[in-house]
């Protein structure tokens, strides 16, 4: 008999099919490089909800998540809600690449606490044309520090002095991961993505969006994960190693995009879902912090902690999916949990379709839940790493 676990958020539901994501074009490759991403996210959420036949008037709260500063961010959720078409209260949160998952957890807590009946989770980021921050730093010898928000942060963890990429190399060495496995794993992830794309799975998750310029003329369509090309193990093997097991091919790429889903009461979920017989609950979440500069091993640790808390095992999981900015992440997870990496990340993962930070794990959640519904339900494990050597994991149940 299968193990069961009680939900920490028994009153919260994710209504099936009320979600969606933009495609994630690689940075600087689409009109998204030119827009206010907060406005884009708000308007896109309205559009996606319209396609899903969900009137946004049902929402009573909005949690937005993004990590790269955007124009008028000060006005956070209220501004984005304005672009969405309903004056909602709400707040902005961020936790680097865990943003997309943490936002879902916060929304579930908002519903579970009885504060809201229908919470919109809206995550987004634009890594293109990174904003540049100018910080007066009296104690710095330059007196004023200027950083390019995206790339300077990727390249420098102020706590350790190292880069994210260095943490991947560090963990690969620590766990004796071989380059051959990493290339093979990466090639397999690409196969999974293109299989999902060809099967039509991706079209159920991502909604094409047409953009307008300031004159109201077409600016372009965000209609695919631009920059993602088929790649084979041979080509990956030929790539220069930037750090142990890390090449430009075995790590993700910066991208732009948004993703959204709803968290509601059970009653509201039945009202809004096109398949009200499906119940999706968040069982639990866990977070850990790994040793300094060991980010890729943190997700596995978070999963271990989560399984211990819930009494579930990997064998109980119908779907396993993660945010894997480095292929090393999956290899280490596999080694730590004794779980075949071929069994996870069907239909695609951030290693392939990119890394716009805020919405990354939201899209992972959406894809994982869609896959679970295809499989007839079950537990869904979603996890990933985040800046600061953090790992986060959550288990959902699809009934």
């Amino acid at each position: 008999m299968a193990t069961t676990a009680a939900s920490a958020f028994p009153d919260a539901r994710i209504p099936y099919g009320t979600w969606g994501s933009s495609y994630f074009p690689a940075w600087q490759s689409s009109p998204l490089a030119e827009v206010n991403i907060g406005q884009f996210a708000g308007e896109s959420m309205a559009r996606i909800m319209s396609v899903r036949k969900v009137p946004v008037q049902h929402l009573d709260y909005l949690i937005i998540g993004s990590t790269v500063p955007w124009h008028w961010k000060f006005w956070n959720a209220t501004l984005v809600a304005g672009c969405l078409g309903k004056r909602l209260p709400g707040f902005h949160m961020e936790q680097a690449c865990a943003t997309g998952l943490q936002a879902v957890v916060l929304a579930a807590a908002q519903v579970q606490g009885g504060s809201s009946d229908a919470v919109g989770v809206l995550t987004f980021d634009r890594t293109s044309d990174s904003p540049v921050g100018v910080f007066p730093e009296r104690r710095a010898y330059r007196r004023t520090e200027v950083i390019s928000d995206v790339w300077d942060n990727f390249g420098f963890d102020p706590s350790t002095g190292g880069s994210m990429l260095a943490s991947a190399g560090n963990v690969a060495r620590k766990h004796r991961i071989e380059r051959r496995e990493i290339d093979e794993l990466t090639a397999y992830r690409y196969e999974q993505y293109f299989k999902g794309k060809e099967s039509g799975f991706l079209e159920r998750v991502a909604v094409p969006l047409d953009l307008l310029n300031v004159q109201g003329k077409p600016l372009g369509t965000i209609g695919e994960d631009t920059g993602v090309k088929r790649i084979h193990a041979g080509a990956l093997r030929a790539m220069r190693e930037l750090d142990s097991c890390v090449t430009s091919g075995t790590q993700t790429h910066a991208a732009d995009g948004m993703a959204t889903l709803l968290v509601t009461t059970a009653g509201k979920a039945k009202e809004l879902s096109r398949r009200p017989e499906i119940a999706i609950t968040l069982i639990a979440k866990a977070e850990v912090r790994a040793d300094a500069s060991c980010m890729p091993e943190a997700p596995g640790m978070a999963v271990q902690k989560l399984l211990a808390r819930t009494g579930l095992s990997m064998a109980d999981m119908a779907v396993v999916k993660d945010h894997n900015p480095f292929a090393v992440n999956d290899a280490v997870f596999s080694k730590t949990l004794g779980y075949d990496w071929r069994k996870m990340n069907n239909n695609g993962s951030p290693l392939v379709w990119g890394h716009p930070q805020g919405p990354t794990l939201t899209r992972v959640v959406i894809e994982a839940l869609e896959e679970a519904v295809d499989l007839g339900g079950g537990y869904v494990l979603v996890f990933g790493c985040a800046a600061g050597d953090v790992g986060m994991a959550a288990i959902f149940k699809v009934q």
Partner: protein
Amino acid sequence: MASVTTPSTATGDPRSAQGNSANGGAVRAMRPGTLGALGLGTVLDIFSKGRLPVRADELVDQVFGPREARGAMVISGACGVVGAGKVMQFASRLLPYGVPVIALDLPGANDGVQQQFDGLVKSFGRDTANAIMNNVIRLNYDGTSLPKELERYRPKLLLEAIPEKLELKKAHYALFRNAFPGIHIWSVTSGFPSAQLGVDIAHPSFPHQINKVFEIVEARPTPHTQLLWALGLVPMKVGDHWSFVLDVFFCGLLQATLQFCRHTNTPYWKADKYIRKLIGPNPFRAHDVIGAKGANYLTWSCLHHLGEAYGPLFTPEEALTARMRSGQAWYPPDHFRPLVNWSLDAEQEQALEAIVEGALLQMTSIVLHEQRADLPTMNAIGELCAQFSNGILARARRMGPERIAHQVGAYHRLFPAAAGTTWYPDTFMNMAEGAWTQLYVNAEHNGKAGVITISRESYNDDVDAELNRAIDWLLGQGIHRVILTGDFHLATQLVGADTLAFHPALSDEREGERISLAWSRTARRLHHDFRASVGFIHGKRCMGGMLELMMHCHQLVAVEDTLLAMPEVTIPVLPGMEGCHWPFRKADAEGRKKLLRLVLEGRPVKAADASGWLVDHAGTLENAVRTAWQVMEQDAAALKPRPFAEGPVETPDAAEAGLAPVDGPLKEARAAIARCVAEACNAPVDLALTVQARHSAAFMTGSLCRKGRLGSDYDKMMKH
């Protein structure tokens, strides 16, 4: 169809007067004319009596007193959007009669009057604009007492345009009545019935500086309302109900569109585009242009009162209530110009039609049930004041009762609360009878001669069908002498073909040919089916298809300062109702050169300057009216018709016509029209019909037309 006996007198109750024309015969009509509701008789009366029913100078004396003791008009709330617009409109029109306009407002009000000056200069030139402003006396008051100075202007008429608060308005009237007993008071209110306010209503339409339409609520026709008509404005009699007619439609459309937006998340700016395609107006843009703060309040107020009186069909949507409080505009600010485009799937398009048509038709059924206005007036209000591309009744007529019931039912399924308000499907059951069949065209006769009146400024298939019915009716009544004219009321000018009718022809040559042939055949009936026919042209202008229609009458009589034009070349399209050959068949060689210039340059000409080659007689209004009637009574003895050449006629070379040289698309359009003129004139009149139709239809599917104003208007309206 059955006819009605219609009133002809300019006084008394229009519904009970027995109609008699000047020569003593009873006036029979397809339906009652709209002038009758204002106590202004019939159009036939105008011709048979040889004069207009009332004169502005006499009515000014009646309303404002004799010149030596002339009183003033007061507009209170003069600095607001409505007040300021009306100050300009009345100050300019009353200036020749020495009636000053007092612009009264609170001392702290924004100076809405001064802001009108630039517009005045544009319209009238600086000297007249200065004179108009000199005719405006601006006074302040504190809201509770009137300035002493007001007395010396002897106020005789108050147009109240203060905020929509019932008690405030009532106190305001008491203030004026105490100070100036006998003063006539009009409220511009959007929503409060006269019975609530205790004064008559003159509800104006936006834009207030230029829109001539007023919904009038009064127990019986008054000289005040007749003065509006005599000054060239368009008063329309409506019943005394909440929100009258216009705001039921205007506010109702916003309400329905908001429901659609709520249902589908469609942003307001995009919903506007779909509504424009479906119905005609941009309800959200209109509110922003009027001024969101005021317009949102007025719309909310109308819907709120309608909701209380009739039920949830009208209960203001939450989004409107919020914007009523905040005054926020509907369109995003410039820094948030729309970024994500939007399209509706088939299901959503169906929902849009069901919601908008269903709601509007349910509202219309209430207005019909209460008989708030005569049908042509009700229909015209949507077109003239709410930018409906077709009046709501014309739309209903096309849909038919079954489709209407279907749409209202679909609307109720989507918004069950609306079913809580009564709707009257029976009001749409008799659309094939009576006034329903003649919303735009009426016919009257006195047993000897008839008058066909057109009350729509632009020609379309509806007008065409109604004109055919009017001709059939007159012939059926044994009438073989007819005057074709604008209706002296709802259509203050005849601007030509309704270019919306051409949209299908942009991609379908057969449709272009159908329109051209069908409309031309109708026009030819004026030539073939009557012993005498006169096209009577008055008003500001007569252009394009309407001028072509008039040309088909045996004779053309015009008021001397009316502008005539064939502006097709500037659009560009080809004149499709035989303008390329019909008038050439009646003109001499010199006249044909002038006609060629008319069609190739597109510039207007005054009727007085077109005498002999385009019109047969031009004179003052009274002179022209009398001349037209004399033709009815005396035929050629009154005005000798110019001979009509049935065979080929020579046309001047374009080079001989003395045209100013042009380049680019205009040059190409001219060449196309010149070819059409040459070929159509070179054909006998029977064949010329198809020659011109083919040219016209082929041109409309060409790239020149597609890139011109017609194509661009089509793209704006139809493409998303």
